[in-house]
């Protein structure tokens, strides 16, 4: 259940930013979460519901941008969507891949008041 500590980090970041802006409520929070960030969204939802209680995010609308993972084949140079680290290159069948995107885990923006 590392999703709980992830959520705690998100709350910490958001509250810090909101306080710096002299706000007391986080109305909206926008997150970038890549499909290969290691986050299980069901666990995240569960942890979120518990952890935001009595914080500035208690009633926040949460928007999640799921960033689809993409890789580049180091053998043939093809770029393609992947779901797992062990997916093969659809062009040449090799597994020497570098991940281009999809591991993001970021607080993108906040709307505070």
């Amino acid at each position, binding site marked *: *259940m*590392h999703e*709980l*500590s*992830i959520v*705690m*980090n*998100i709350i*910490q*970041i*958001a509250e810090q*930013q*909101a306080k710096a*802006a*002299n*706000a*007391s*409520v986080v*109305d*909206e929070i926008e*997150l970038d979460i890549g499909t290969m960030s*290691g986050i299980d969204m069901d666990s995240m*939802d569960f942890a979120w*519901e*518990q*952890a935001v*209680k*009595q914080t500035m995010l*208690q*009633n*926040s*609308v*949460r928007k999640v941008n799921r960033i689809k993972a993409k890789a580049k084949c180091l053998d043939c140079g093809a770029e393609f969507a992947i779901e*797992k*680290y*062990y997916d*093969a290159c659809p062009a040449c069948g090799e*597994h*020497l*891949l570098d991940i281009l995107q999809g591991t993001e*885990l*970021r*607080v*993108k*923006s*906040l*709307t*505070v*008041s």
Partner: protein
Amino acid sequence: MCATCGCDSGSKTTYKLLDKDDHDHPHTHVHPHTQDHAHDQDYSHPAQKTIIDVEQDVLSQNNLLAQRNRGYFEGRNILALNLVSSPGSGKTSLLERTLNDLKSELEFAVIEGDQQTTNDADRIQATGTKVTQINTGKGCHLDAHMILHALQGMKPKENSVLFIENVGNLVCPAMFDLGEKERIVIISVTEGDDKPLKYPDMFHSSTLCIINKIDLLPYVPFDMEKVKSNAKKVNHHLEIIEVSCISGEGLPLWYNWLKSKVLQPETV
């Protein structure tokens, strides 16, 4: 307050998880923002909404502390190794063997991460090695902050090897950089050959994979070649060493790997 990192104390209660029934609003998922916040008086916060571009990595705090640990290790030429595995794959056994076999050649220190007990630390102490136990309580992984505090107490020697045995768990320790030089994932032949595919994040973030308990190979269905190819699919940089902590087979390969890392001069 902790002077090094600014945290409230050395306390372990890092998470606030409130009990299900201590609050009276219904547990819907994302709370729709219907009430419109019509606080008419007394509220000091401005009525209009401000948008803040944050663009901050969620793990930035951990990564920052990990970098601090890394600086500490580099400054003292300490080789820090983070050992991760499922519960019972043989992390402590590998350390016991290694410490006993190499203690006349290398200087060691160990940080033990465990939820509850000091059993593993006791086993390490029996080898005569300096060891610090971190009990994470319910926490299922070590983080950079815990390592920072453990280091404050133990002050490992310069030019030493620091083993960090993580909590037995192949999922979340993958996300938490501790400031280590190398991450070592251990699996044992009793675990089934699909481990790398089931826990790809861990195999992707490690540099060495140790396959332990090869003395049991005659008794269990375990396709060594398949595991290796699965592991390589997940991480084409991964080195793999097969060992048995009981028979000692393969340990010289591990010891060579370890010594090569110790002797290795500062990389560019």
